[in-house]
């Protein structure tokens, strides 16, 4: 069996970041990626927050193919037949380093893998890793097709459906409540139209999240990100709620119906759909994290269960990048000791615990259970929209009277036992 120092399975953000960190170590690093090129299998929303990762990989991002830096944040609550949008603009969004950028993974990961290759890492595409090779319980290599390759350390960077962590016995079988499905369209529009429609300066971007009737009470929401010359428009829906929420509806139809809403229709008017994609994302939070290491192997990024769905932001890419770097650092130190045992690799968990990743995941540990409350996706968005609509509505009848009766109705809806319990739960965040 041929042997290298480190095999990284998966050339996504987590795997490539780990490879980058290791590229100056003198070790032989092999990245095996199943797609035709890095990024060709990957889907995100998506927006990357730059500030959390600058400390870990400061130089890398200068030439990165970002789409737009986000200067406008919108949250839209959708009711049946109405919606309310909150919009945030801040001067701080204009200060460099810009806080966040939109991106497209097929472009972004490909660029990153070229960068990593230039640093001497072997990134081999079209290689699906099929199995782990173990000896006396420790992981010593991988099998791809009929080839076997050995390494001192294997990094599982194989994404949300990490079959490798399952094969290593590090995680329990996949369950619906741990995942949401995201699916989206790329809609091409020229950059002037995008900037005019969203009220953006040149190169600036908008991020818009939607909660409410669009998911028909299902856990989840919608997202719209502006790219340079396209929009990323999609939905994220929890699989557990998809399985059980009545009336049942094929999930893909929800996106078509969403696009028919005037709020969306006018934003995408004249645009041409150029791609349709789907991918899973982590929903379970810290409770479903697998064990992060074993003898000869580490998990990074989505494979390690590092992700947070906080309704208005999905976090995963920064976690993937920084966990990759921390795994790289751990491997360098393990190499100095020439010890890749679980005890030696446990340093990785310590580093993760000290980093913002696990601190955030702990802070937001109650979010997944909160999100399983269907009222968050139906009653409350509807209430916000109705309240606003009533405020703005002028009718034949004198306004005062309607106003009074509506306030009474609102009190009834808000000041009851159920809402009180929800409020207690929301306070935990």
């Amino acid at each position: 069996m041929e042997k290298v120092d480190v095999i990284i399975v998966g050339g996504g953000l987590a795997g490539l970041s780990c490879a980058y960190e290791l590229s100056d170590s003198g070790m032989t690093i092999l990245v095996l990626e199943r797609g035709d090129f890095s990024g060709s299998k990957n889907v995100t929303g998506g927006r990357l927050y730059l500030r959390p990762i600058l400390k870990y990989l400061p130089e890398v991002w200068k030439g990165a193919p970002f789409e737009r830096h986000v200067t406008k944040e919108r949250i839209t609550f959708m009711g049946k037949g109405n919606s309310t949008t909150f919009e945030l603009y801040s001067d701080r969004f204009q200060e460099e380093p810009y806080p966040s950028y939109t991106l497209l993974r097929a472009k972004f990961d490909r660029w990153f893998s070229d960068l990593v290759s230039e640093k001497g890492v072997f990134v081999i595409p079209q290689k699906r890793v099929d199995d782990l090779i173990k000896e006396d319980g420790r992981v010593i290599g991988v099998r791809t097709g009929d080839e076997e390759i050995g390494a001192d350390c294997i990094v599982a960077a194989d994404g949300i459906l990490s079959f490798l962590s399952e094969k290593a016995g590090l995680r329990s079988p996949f369950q619906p409540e741990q995942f949401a499905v995201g699916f989206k369209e790329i809609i091409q529009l020229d950059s002037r139209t995008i900037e005019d429609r969203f009220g953006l300066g040149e190169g600036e971007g908008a991020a818009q999240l939607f909660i409410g009737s669009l998911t028909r009470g299902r856990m989840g929401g919608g997202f719209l990100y502006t790219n340079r010359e396209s929009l990323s428009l999609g939905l994220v829906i929890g699989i557990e709620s998809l399985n059980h929420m009545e009336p049942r509806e094929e999930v893909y139809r929800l996106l078509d119906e969403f696009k028919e809403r005037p709020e969306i229709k006018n934003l995408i008017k004249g645009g041409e759909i150029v791609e349709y994609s789907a991918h899973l994302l982590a929903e379970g939070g810290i409770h479903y994290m697998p064990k992060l290491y074993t003898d000869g192997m580490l998990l990074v990024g989505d494979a390690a269960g590092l992700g947070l769905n906080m309704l208005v932001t999905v976090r995963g890419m920064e976690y993937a990048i920084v966990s990759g770097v921390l795994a790289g650092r751990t491997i360098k130190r393990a190499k100095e000791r020439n010890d890749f045992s679980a005890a030696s690799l446990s340093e990785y968990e310590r580093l993760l615990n000290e980093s913002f990743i696990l601190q955030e995941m702990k802070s937001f540990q109650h979010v997944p259970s909160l999100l399983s409350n269907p009222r968050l996706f139906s009653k409350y968005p509807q209430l916000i929209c109705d309240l606003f609509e009533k405020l703005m509505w002028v009718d034949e009848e004198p306004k005062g009277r309607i106003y009074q009766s509506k306030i009474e109705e609102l009190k009834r809806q808000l000041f009851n036992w159920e809402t009180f319990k929800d409020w207690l739960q929301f306070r935990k965040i």
Partner: protein
Amino acid sequence: MKITEKLALDAFKNDKESHIKLNQEICRTCRERFCIYACPANLYSLNERGEMVVEFAGCLECGTCMVACIYGSVQWNYPRGEYGVQYRYG
């Protein structure tokens, strides 16, 4: 736009053999048909003999069907390297 037309926009390189296999014995007794509702590409349907079938050629490789089917009927793997969907935007 119909879902089939949307899928036609994506670049696929299809293997001869499916990367998704269903256990007909399990599907026969299933009443909820989670797969039909969960697949964002609408690839699951019942054939004329009442068997569940999946059209693997348009698969977006999300794995949703495998996770949604709590009865364990969906035996799922990524397509071999070289095959399957190839995103140009992602």
